[in-house]
């Protein structure tokens, strides 16, 4: 009876964690960005948002998305100079954007010889309170600045002082916030770190894991941002889901010792998916699926070998880090990086990611340590079981859903 009750509670927890996760799709978070050019007499801005984001503004009125977007910007973007509102020249003009995105241009008439303008952006916040807007501002002296707009920070005074705005340190600072915000808002990265941490017993192992993951994602973040590689974002995001499921399966395999059995089940699942892909012409290519099968076999079987298994996790963390790095880079390239601040922004963003990662890991580590000191420590195996099962379900949800474009 007691076992039955436990199992029921476990199922309930697993189910609720997955149902709750439906809306927390990492990377599909609500965000938009803008590029501003400030000259002595006018301020020009080009706003970009995903078309999906703009559908939030629909009220059922017979209007196309570009008109809704332009109208919304007209109401929610304003500039003040010396306390006076700058007039918007003409209407907001919809301009062409790449597929899946919307763009609009705004021009304000402002005389800025002495004052620094105050930019006020409240776009989308009424429809998505977690919305984040990134503004990239270039002044007439060709200095770049980045500003982050959130529901609680809807205004920024543009620094007109060249020395202040142009410093590399200022660029790094601005991107550190963006990096922290990205990792804390990215549910899949947090979930992956949790899956990695579940079986860690010693602080030394934790350090090795973090180092491996950091080395991996720093490499791909850098080479993607520089433009050396252009990854397919759908494959990257689906593979991030797969990495979560694989680590969760490995956690259970490590507890039970059933590495071979679980490897076999995983391969059957992946082969079934590969066959579906071939028949329906959807999802990953056969070669990619073969890669995932090989990775699964190699990883789980290597982990079953006690001697090789001990050192394999930090090494695998590098591999998983490489995949997650592509995901981080997509966020950075989507925002847009000023060429004069490429290295500063890359460094700042990476520092931000590391700080956010450390914050999350410290929090999770403290929770795990706290749990170990409670009277419930005898149930720790059950907690790992439930958490790993939930994470595996969540990882598969992201992996399959993103592979077929369902989510």
């Amino acid at each position: 009876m007691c076992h039955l009750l436990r199992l029921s509670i476990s199922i309930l927890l697993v189910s609720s964690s997955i149902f709750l996760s439906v809306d927390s799709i990492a990377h599909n978070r609500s965000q938009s960005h803008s590029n501003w050019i400030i000259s002595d007499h006018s301020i020009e801005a080009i706003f970009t948002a995903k078309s999906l984001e703009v559908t939030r503004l629909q009220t059922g009125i017979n209007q196309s998305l570009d008109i809704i977007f332009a109208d919304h910007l007209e109401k929610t973007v304003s500039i003040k100079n010396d306390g006076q509102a700058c007039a918007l020249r003409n209407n907001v003009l919809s301009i062409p954007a790449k597929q899946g995105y919307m763009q609009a241009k705004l021009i304000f008439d402002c005389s800025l010889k002495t004052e620094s303008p105050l930019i006020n952006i409240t776009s989308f916040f009424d429809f998505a309170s977690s919305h984040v807007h990134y503004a990239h501002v270039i002044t007439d002296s060709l200095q770049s600045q980045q500003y982050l707009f959130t529901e609680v920070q809807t205004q920024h005074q543009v620094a007109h002082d060249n020395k202040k705005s142009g410093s590399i340190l200022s660029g790094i600072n601005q991107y550190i916030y963006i990096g922290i915000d990205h990792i804390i808002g990215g549910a899949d990265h947090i979930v992956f770190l949790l899956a990695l941490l579940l079986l860690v017993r010693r602080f030394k192992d934790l350090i090795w894991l973090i180092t491996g993951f950091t080395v991996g994602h720093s490499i791909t973040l850098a080479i993607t941002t520089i433009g050396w590689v252009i990854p397919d974002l759908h494959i990257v995001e689906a593979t991030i889901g797969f990495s979560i499921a694989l680590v969760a399966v490995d956690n259970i395999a490590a507890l039970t010792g059933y590495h071979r059995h679980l490897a076999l089940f995983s391969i059957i699942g992946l082969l079934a998916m590969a066959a579906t892909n071939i028949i329906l012409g959807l999802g990953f290519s056969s070669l990619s699926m073969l890669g995932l099968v090989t990775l699964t076999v190699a990883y789980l079987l290597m982990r079953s070998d006690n001697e090789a298994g001990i050192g394999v996790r930090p090494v695998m963390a590098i591999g998983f880090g490489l995949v997650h790095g592509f995901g981080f880079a997509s966020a950075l390239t989507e925002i847009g990086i000023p060429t004069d601040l490429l290295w500063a922004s890359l460094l700042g963003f990476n520092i931000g990611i590391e700080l956010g990662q450390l914050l999350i890991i410290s929090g999770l580590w403290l929770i795990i340590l706290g749990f170990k000191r409670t009277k419930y420590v005898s149930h720790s195996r059950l907690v790992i079981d439930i958490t790993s099962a939930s994470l595996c379900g969540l990882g598969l949800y992201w992996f399959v859903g993103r592979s077929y474009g369902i989510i």
Partner: protein
Amino acid sequence: MISENKLSPNYRSIALLFIGSLIGISSLFLVPNKLLGYDQGAVAQINNAVIRKDEYERAIALFRGDKRGPITDADLNLVLEKLIKEELLVQAALRSDSPRKDLKIRQRVLQTLLTSIQTRSAAEISDPSQSAGEDLKFYLNQLRDNADIQRLKKAPGNILVSSEID
């Protein structure tokens, strides 16, 4: 008996893992269809494209203009069917790459696009000193920024024109 007790947590772990995986995958069936979740204003989905409500209503309004008497359910179905057929044909044309390969279609697409930009610019720009040509230039620059353009083999200056050959 002892070995059975030792094994039971393992079975529980595996059972939970399978339940978790099953729920994770089956949750995908609970996700609202893209048609409903992404585009609340859609009335039909044809492959990856949707027919939007405003588009449908516009077609109904046009139909109403041509028809005497009230619009019936059969009329509404007819309009929707017409839009679906149209979308199927457009998709077939795009699949066959006609807009690029067929010179007549290419010219028509190009002309329609240019007219649309110039008309929109003229309607939105109240200042006569600003020309619609500026927006076309801006539009082209935007397209260029988002495109991957590689000039292969010969730069235009190296290509011999007929007068040079002679």
